[in-house]
């Protein structure tokens, strides 16, 4: 069965919808939910790229592994699994610097 979203219907009553920006694109989220949950629900499983270019995503989900670190409003080391979204938040998913770029 295909669903529109990974958000579980009828499990929780959600707060108001808010808009965040991820890599320059608008993404809808709900107040209070973690950045990682909002990105996963939006179909973005890759949260950053390792220095060798390999994609990484949510692993421990409880603030231990730092695999889910994204850049938020200029702060380069935000654990997306622990940090709630805020309306207007600007998120960059880290990428390795490429030569000649």
């Amino acid at each position, binding site marked *: 069965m295909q669903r529109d979203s990974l*958000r579980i219907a009828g*499990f929780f009553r959600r*707060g108001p919808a808010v808009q965040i920006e991820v890599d320059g694109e608008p993404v809808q989220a709900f*107040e209070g939910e973690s950045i990682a*949950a909002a990105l996963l629900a939006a179909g973005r499983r890759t949260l950053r790229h390792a220095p060798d270019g390999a994609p990484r*995503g949510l692993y421990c989900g409880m*603030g231990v592994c730092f695999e889910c670190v994204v850049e938020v409003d200029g702060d380069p080391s935000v654990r997306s699994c622990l940090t709630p979204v805020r309306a207007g938040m600007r998120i960059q998913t880290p990428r390795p610097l490429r030569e000649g770029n």
Partner: protein
Amino acid sequence: MASPEIVIVGAGPAGLAAGIEAARLSATVLVLDEYAAPGGQYYRQPAPGLTAAGDRPSFAHSREGQERIEDARRAGVEFLSGALVWGGFADGTIALQVGDASRTLSPAKLILAGGAQDRPVAFPGWTLPGVMTAGAAQALVRGQGVLPGRRILMAGTGPLQIAMAAQLVEAGAQVTAVLEAHRPSALLGMAPHFWGQWGRLQEGWAYTRTLRAARVPIRFGRTVLRVAGNGALSRVVTVALDGDWHPIPGSEVEVEVDTLCLGFGLVPNTKLARLFGCRITHDPSRGGLVPVHDEQMQTSRPGIFVAGEAAGIAGAKAAELQGRIAGLSAAVALGKGKGGDAGQRVETARHALAVELRFARALNRIFVLRLGLRALVTDETIICRCEGITAGVLRATVAEWTRTVDAVRTVSRAGFGRCQGATCETLVADLLSQATGASIGDVGQFHVRPPLKPIPLGALADLAADRSDAV
């Protein structure tokens, strides 16, 4: 804020119970927790802004947690959520960061109740997005109301992953199978330990009934061999295991899923205890490295107590009992509760705890990872996820230079990344033990130094001005 008499690190079952008992004896208590809301993993509360709709079994522990949190508040316990404890000093002072600011607290007594993390198991492809721990899946479902994926395979060992699979099914996820590494014959030894554990049997029975109704098979003697996918997980190759968990050649099966949840048990969180120099021992029946403690739950450092999974893996009931003992003992040591029944309450908790620990240790011994699983780790398999260091690099290091995990770390840089070795420590220890033949208890541990987790440099500078005695 003036330092409270007792600071508790961790707001799960152990931390809450400790706080309630100490505050009821009129100690001033502050509970610090890294998450947005108290409760920890077992009592996981919905993210602020979410409210549970309906009365599903998955929420039972969250509801129970809500009551405990309210009990604690009524008893006068203060909470500080979103607080990252990153440092400890020789005089028992702790350093924490909240938001952008760091500060210190100097409580008379400290109770470490920081819980546990999922035990990592490495195999080719385990760094792909879509591969996550069972704990991550649980935090998503119960904390965020979000499914970890659409088609989910679970692999691991022990009863926790059965519980997790049932919760995923109840939340509407498609779970293709649960892979239990043990063969049924290995689990027969469990049966006598369940005598008298009627509540646990009932809960376990409810989970298996949920899985059966959803036609989710539990496959015994099978696990993940490797995974692949373009940009994210799409294929898992599973393999049959022999009694010692060696993969059996020719038994590989490929399945298409977008999510793999790994539930290979838990590792106690001992970082803060180690930072304070508490004596640590290696005990597989308690989950690996654990702090040594006395009957009051006091560690080898006077005034520093430990409770819950951080004291050894034993489940939520044991965590709560240990929390009670630690909270009462810490408060009594401060001269509280004179003429009351604190001593009697400690005795009662201690008797109940003995029963819990007997059960937990028997279970932990059965679900210790068996050595055949090491065959999953090819030379190309990443061990240190932060620094991208492979098993091949580490094996070369071990052969030439080193005999302790800390020496391996210095030479290879494995464990020097952002997570400070929290994820790869047990993997490096296992690899070293395999390479040298030394027992896992004899290869040592990563030296722990502050900050325990990365914090902004500015926060450090604020504190450096008035402190120079960091442990």
